[in-house]
């Protein structure tokens, strides 16, 4: 029975990794695979502490990168559910201690989803001078059936740097309710990007905010979304600059095709006369100049549109 369980576990790890096109890690690469409410496998490196606890419908994880440590290779997380139905709740508490540096790559995979909920509650704290780059890629099946609710709160201490990218390009997005908020202290920098391709009846709601609290803090919020068929997207990006020399920029671009619908709500607020925040938003069909340029090279309209969208989401 125990042997059978090990075989099942190995097969599950293999299936999870195969779905994200990842098959093997080098020994000096930290990685953690979580299926449903079970940590299937993990490999840690010096300076990285990961503690986990199973919940009824997910996993609670505490991550710490110790003071002054630089994790050489990106740390790979794989979250997923192979069955067609289920809930996966991930509660993550991350602390990057003073002067520590790390990159996290999270792959969230639901290749057979019919009715899956992936609920992520993350709190990330970057202490003074720390940095974290967090890349989250979603791989979904072609038929939707996934509800993604990532809620992340980030606190950046003095001089810290946090960058995050959320990518969902392959497979149907399903329902996404992404909510990221950052509080940014003196000289710290936050950079958030989302790149999503919505199809069929996908429903995408992005809320990103950066509260620039400290002097010379900076924030950039970028959302590049392409939607087609009957998909819909609402993007709410907000930057509030509260301190002198705080700088922020909101960039929202949405390409809309077929019967899809898009709405962008950039909010910029400045509470110090020495701060500066800008925004740009473009929503609509594919840019006609770009399209005509590619058409004049002999691409069909569909080929040209796909290439423009590929660029926007790259």
């Amino acid at each position, binding site marked *: 029975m125990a042997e059978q369980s090990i075989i099942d576990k190995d097969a599950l790890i293999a299936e999870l990794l195969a779905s994200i096109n990842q098959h093997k890690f080098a020994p000096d690469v930290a990685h953690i695979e979580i299926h449903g409410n079970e940590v299937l496998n993990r490999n840690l490196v010096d300076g990285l502490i990961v503690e986990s606890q199973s919940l009824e419908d997910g996993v609670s994880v505490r991550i710490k990168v110790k003071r002054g440590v630089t994790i050489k290779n990106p740390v790979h997380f794989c979250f997923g559910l192979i069955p067609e139905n289920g809930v996966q709740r991930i509660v993550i508490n991350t602390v990057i201690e003073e002067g520590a540096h790390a990159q996290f790559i999270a792959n969230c995979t639901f290749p057979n989803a019919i009715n899956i909920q992936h609920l992520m509650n993350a709190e990330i704290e970057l202490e003074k001078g720390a940095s974290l780059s967090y890349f989250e890629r979603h791989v979904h099946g072609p038929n939707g059936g996934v509800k993604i609710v990532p809620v992340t709160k980030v606190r950046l201490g003095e001089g810290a740097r946090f960058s995050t990218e959320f990518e969902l390009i392959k497979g149907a997005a399903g329902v996404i309710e992404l909510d990221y908020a950052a509080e940014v202290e003196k000289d710290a920098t936050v950079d958030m990007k989302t790149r999503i391709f919505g199809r069929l009846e996908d429903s995408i709601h992005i809320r990103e905010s950066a509260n620039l609290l400290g002097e010379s803090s900076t924030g950039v919020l970028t959302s*590049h979304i392409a939607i087609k068929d009957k998909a819909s997207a609402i993007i709410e990006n907000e930057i509030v600059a509260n301190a002198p020399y705080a700088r922020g920029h909101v960039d929202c*671009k949405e390409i809309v095709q077929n019967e899809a619908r898009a709405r962008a709500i950039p909010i910029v607020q400045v509470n110090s006369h020495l701060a500066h925040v800008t925004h740009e938003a473009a929503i609509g069909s594919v*840019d*006609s*100049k*770009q399209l*005509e*340029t*590619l*058409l*004049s*090279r*002999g*691409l*069909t*309209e569909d080929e*040209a549109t796909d*290439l*423009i969208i*590929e*660029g*926007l*989401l*790259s």
Partner: protein
Amino acid sequence: MNLLEIKNITLLKEGRPILNNLSMEIWNGHVHAIIGPNGAGKSTLANTIMGLSGYRDFEGDIVFNGESLKGLSIDERARKGITLLFQEPARFEGLSVSQFILAGAKEKSQEIVEEALRQVGLVPENYMKRAVDKTLSGGERKRIELASIYAMKPRLVLMDEPDSGVDIDSVKYIFGIIKDLKQAGSTVILITHSPEVLKRADHAFLICAGTLVDKGEVSRMFDYFSGKCIPCPHKGQPDTDKIISNVSTFALN
């Protein structure tokens, strides 16, 4: 032999004729220049030949290689071998230079991308992975556009002000590409205000107010340019005077 025939085309914008019963014959394998003051209809003619949006509804006919282009979309015309170098090239966020050149390339290989970039004086290793976006200068963007056209190996290239936005040192690569395209058998139509560009042509057309005023050898066109404008709403406007002055100065030199 004519590759392209413009047959009595009239195109109206807001009720005003931008092209007015214009006829031209474009010989195969030659470099032709179309000159004329601002608003003469030069870019409109290029856009009409390419079939851009807003330039498809005209009287008369455009015949390419014996077939009418009427009713054909931009990409259908491109697949017949016609392409356009836009005066202001588009920028493509996230699309690499390599992807952009390959998109229209006749031969889909990395070698052709490298060759095309070298032809326009850009070091392939420094550009292939860069995005065709606002991080490139106007001149770099123009040269990448030309590299893409070089890789396409078209039969007819319309170049709308090929030297605009390009620094003096880089202009030689533009002229080099015009020569290369001709040697490869392409026919080139240069829309230009520049005497230096005009010098690269074998033959020139002078148009004003959408009408053909004169045509012939480039040297003769210089001689006659200033005296050939017909009465039109542009005559006497500052731009018109400047162009006439530029070209006349060049002709005198």
